[in-house]
């Protein structure tokens, strides 16, 4: 089982879920390039300008570790990254678990992604120009702070470390992506976990994904919000167990 985190966090996102499967599966967690403890120098703006770049990494990780019949569990944007990986290397993947997936965040004709283009622009602007939300919580943890060792020590065990510059690019890729056309090409059996009251990926979006992915099952979670893997790990674990 390979667990992939979404935009905004790192592999810690799975800390309450992944261990539950360690007895029965080989469990792999990783940080996307730019997040957590990944090698920031490996970031290539061209490669990672599309979700395919991240999907290629997933395939590379599976190949490197000699995995087969992979159950890929992806949160948020990583649900689509897993979908792209499974389309590229169908032989590797047995099934996909998508937690809060969205193939497109921006509304379109006959499609409700949940956000208007100006709203996403506002988000990207606030990432590009207004760094604040970011720097306040994230930057010190990532940058380290040679002048303030006390600060660094306090933050060494911080979660969800993200490089701000890479996060900006990742936000752009995530929130402007459109993978609707890829969904029908997914051959792996797929579980969609839909949180209630998830503003990032609404129920309508979850239902859209279910309708488009041929061999898929949709499960509504009682847990609210976009991160049921943290807010209701037992429910998420039970749903995944039931599926696999």
């Amino acid at each position, binding site marked *: 089982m390979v667990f992939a985190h979404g935009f905004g966090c790192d592999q810690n996102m799975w*800390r309450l879920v992944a261990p539950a499967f360690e007895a029965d599966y080989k469990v792999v967690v990783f940080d996307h390039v730019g997040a957590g403890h990944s090698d920031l120098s490996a970031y290539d703006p061209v490669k990672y300008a599309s979700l395919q770049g991240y999907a290629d990494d997933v395939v590379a990780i599976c190949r490197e570790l000699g995995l087969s019949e992979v159950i890929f569990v992806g949160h948020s944007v990583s649900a689509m990254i897993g979908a792209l990986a499974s389309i590229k290397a169908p032989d590797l993947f047995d099934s996909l678990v998508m937690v809060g997936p969205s193939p497109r965040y921006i509304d379109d004709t006959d499609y409700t992604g949940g956000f208007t283009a100006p709203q996403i622009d*506002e988000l990207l602007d606030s990432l590009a120009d207004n760094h604040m*939300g970011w720097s*306040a*919580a994230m930057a010190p943890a990532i940058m380290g702070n040679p002048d303030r060792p006390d600060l660094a020590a306090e933050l060494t065990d911080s*979660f969800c470390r993200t490089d701000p510059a890479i996060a900006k690019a990742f936000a752009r890729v995530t929130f402007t992506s459109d993978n609707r056309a890829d969904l029908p090409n997914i051959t792996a059996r797929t579980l969609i976990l839909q949180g209630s009251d998830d503003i990032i990926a609404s129920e309508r979006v979850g239902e859209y994904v279910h309708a488009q992915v041929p061999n898929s099952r949709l499960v509504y979670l009682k847990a609210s919000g976009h991160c049921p893997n943290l807010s209701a790990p037992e429910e998420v674990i039970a749903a995944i167990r039931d599926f696999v």
Partner: protein
Amino acid sequence: MEDLEDLYENAPCGYLSLTPQGLIAKSNATLSGWLGIPSEQLIGKRLRDLLNVAGSIFYETHFAPLLRMQGFFHEVALDFVTSDGTLLPVLANATEKRNDAGDLLFTRVTLFQATKRRRYERELVEAEEAARRLGKLREQFIAVLGHDLRNPVAALHAGINMLRREPLSKKSLQLTEVMQGSLARISELIDNVMDLARSQSGTGINLSRDANAPLEPVLRQVINELAAAHPDCTIEDEIMLEEPIHCDRKRMAQLVSNLLSNAITHGASDHPVRFRASTSGGELILTFANRGDPIPDEVMSHLFQPFFRGRTSTSQQGLGLGLHIASEIARAHGGSLDVQSSSDEVLFTFRMPLIWHEGPVGVR
């Protein structure tokens, strides 16, 4: 006694308590006042309902997970939307209140207005961006100086040399000499400005050290050139270099040239400029002494700053880079450049270690 109920309601900060489901269970009057929304209308809303869309995405993808994982977050910057649609920038702290069994009871959020702080931070970021652009401009400036400006100077130089092989009148020949002198001066100015740009860009002056080649002939050449250019001035020199010196000889020539020129320019014309070079105690020591007016205290502190021009008359003025670059060359060599001024003598002293060890510059 302090009225705790009033302290909660009218505290100089906003308070919010969220249920485990993330709904607002309680808020104080201060926050209601800031938002222009009565407390009872806040009850049952989600924190993100009060944020702009960008902020709510941020909150859901970053801060909500952080809160779940570590039980708190501190100094998170959020933008609330007030009843009249304006944004209220705040800094938020939050902690989870759990019972003994570990069940989440409440999440408590404290909010501080941060309008001015946010504006200040934005200005800082803009200033950083401006500095970055300036740095880039400087790189281009160096490239232009180094290449685009030097090429035509070289062409002029070659042209004048060719002219001088033609039959010329005496006056024309003299003119070409003046022109050659001016070109040499232009080249020197370009070199100085480039060195300044390099030293200011943080990379410092690059050295190519060589301990094997002798330094003395290089120094002699500089002295001879300056003596030729200033026939009215006497330069007394004493050079006793008995040990190998790990230095960049071209840069040392530049340093000596800058400091000797300075001594000649500012020294009393009826007294010699004295130059001494020696090795002792593991150091190379160069001294440059001239008679003349002492350097005023207020000038002393600016002496090595770029573009500083002291008491020279207009005709003597260069760019004011000579001493600055000399001090940068000293620094690059892990050495020092000091000045002493008394009523009858101005004395510049350069020192550097003879042996250079790989490692941080200047650590001795």
